[in-house]
């Protein structure tokens, strides 16, 4: 669409800037509020002091670290997310490749199995999975929060459609040179699959970093509790101190925002690509 004129451009910029300001206002309140004394967060929230405080300090951050074991929650979340991403890539990429590229007898049935499971949302298995995990003695473990999420029908489908679209010529050259299917996958297909790997890693990471229902069900103590469940508990932990809660929130989201700013391309393109495939 052609849009003419400097005036039209200015109007567009003004509209976008105004919308973005309104849109990010809650985020700004969160960051500023985390730097203000607890007692003045709520009373001054909707005034201009909500964005431009009289004094700022890191006291709330010190309070959070003193009141709860924040670093333990952070380490738990980081480990759960990192391990799930690594395991997920390790099992889903080869599965997608085998389904897209290799000839084997059960291929069609395996593909139908994956596609059928694609429509089952996690919430539809949470209750029996809790039963299963309790029976295995995995309650209050990292294993229960990592292992069930490694294999993913969605990730397999993502790799499957990526490898279907990848030109065959590269691998065929390798195969002619005597490389077996495994070597062709590892040395030729995988290095060319960076967009799919990045998309899958980002989506798995976000899902695990934000996961709430399952850890709420499967963890009862502090030991393996991840950040979202810890935040919900901290939010209702007396005394109610909004400065502390916001400081907790900022520390919880900072790693994701840094990752987002560094790898913005993969976040945005990954989601757009998924949309185009759907």
């Amino acid at each position, binding site marked *: 669409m052609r849009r003419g004129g400097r005036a039209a451009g200015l109007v567009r910029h003004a509209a976008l800037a105004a919308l973005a300001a309104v849109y990010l206002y809650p985020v700004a*309140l969160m960051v500023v509020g985390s730097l203000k004394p607890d007692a003045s967060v*709520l009373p001054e*929230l*909707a005034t201009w002091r909500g964005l431009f405080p009289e004094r700022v300090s890191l006291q709330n951050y010190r309070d959070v670290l003193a009141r709860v074991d924040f670093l333990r929650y952070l380490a738990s979340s980081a480990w759960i997310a990192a391990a799930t991403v690594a395991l997920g890539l390790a099992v889903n990429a080869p599965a997608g490749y085998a389904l897209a590229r290799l000839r084997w007898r059960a291929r069609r049935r395996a593909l139908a199995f994956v596609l059928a499971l694609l429509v089952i949302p996690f919430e539809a298995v949470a209750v029996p999975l809790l039963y299963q995990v309790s029976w295995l003695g995995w309650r209050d473990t990292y294993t229960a929060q990592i292992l069930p999420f490694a294999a993913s029908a969605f990730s397999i489908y993502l790799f499957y459609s990526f490898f279907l679209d990848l030109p065959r010529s590269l691998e065929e050259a390798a195969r002619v040179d005597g490389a*077996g299917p495994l070597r062709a996958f590892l040395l030729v297909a995988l290095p060319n699959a960076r967009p799919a790997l990045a998309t899958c890693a980002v989506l798995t990471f976000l899902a695990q970093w934000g996961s709430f229902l399952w850890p709420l069900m499967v963890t009862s103590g502090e030991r393996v509790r991840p950040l979202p469940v810890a935040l919900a508990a901290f939010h209702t932990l007396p005394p109610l101190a909004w400065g502390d809660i916001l400081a907790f*929130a900022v520390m919880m989201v900072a790693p994701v925002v840094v990752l987002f700013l560094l790898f913005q391309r993969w976040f945005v393109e990954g989601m757009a690509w998924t949309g185009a495939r759907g």
Partner: protein
Amino acid sequence: MRATAEREEARAARLMAAPALAGLALFLALPFALAVGLSFTDLRLGAPRPPTFVGLAQYAGALADPRFQRALVNNLVFAAVVVPVQTACALGLALLLHGRLRGRALYRAAFFLPVVFPMALVAVLWTLLYAPGPEGPVNRALSLLTLGRWSPRDFLHDPAWALPAIMAVSVWQGVGFQMVILLAGLQGIPRRLHEAAALDGAGPLRRFLHVTLPGLRNPLAFTALVTTVLAFRLFDQVRIMTRGGPAGATTTAVHEIFETAYVRGQLARASAMTVIFFLAVLGITLAQRRLAAHRRWEA
């Protein structure tokens, strides 16, 4: 020689697919089958006697349960409001961002940012924004917009306002995701279609209706499906902001499943609810796929 190569390929394929397929079987297919199986029993957590077969009694009980009925209605209302509103907002933003624009990446990042926020954090932050009384930012904003005629209310404890409040939070968090997909869709519409329409004398509105919207058919169908399914999976915001209250005004299917299984220990009843929930999600997915396929066939 050829036969060995084929056998080697089949063996490698099985080796590569086995771990993921085993994981899916163990942690998705098996528990799903278990949910179906348990829904025909009377299993309770910590019950002394083994479960017995009770037929469809759990389904009858779940469907007769006023809280579960309320939950399903809430999910429907939530989807019926959030899907069109969020899609319209996302489309508006995508159109504003489409085309040559300095600083586009910055704007896009701004609207996309909440998508990477954990929902638990979004829920806690908005609990603060919905603070009752005139010092709450949402109350303050509505008071400014209505020139002081708005009387402050306690959104999350008001039976009429609690669900709309949660809807607004969900739109705020999710609109960037839809925007990014629609923006990619807009970039996929060939420029010459717009130019041809303009040559034929079509104004901006007609070009939007006859070129842009049909060109966005697939991304729109996809985002609508994802948002509808997400509306049915609604849990985190509800758990943190209202616990389903006041008086069931914001409870959802997943929240009732959680309460029934985890708080009350009625695993069989929760399994029946799970199956009903799954059938609802499946129905929506199939209906929307059929609609999308139908429109594609017409075109």
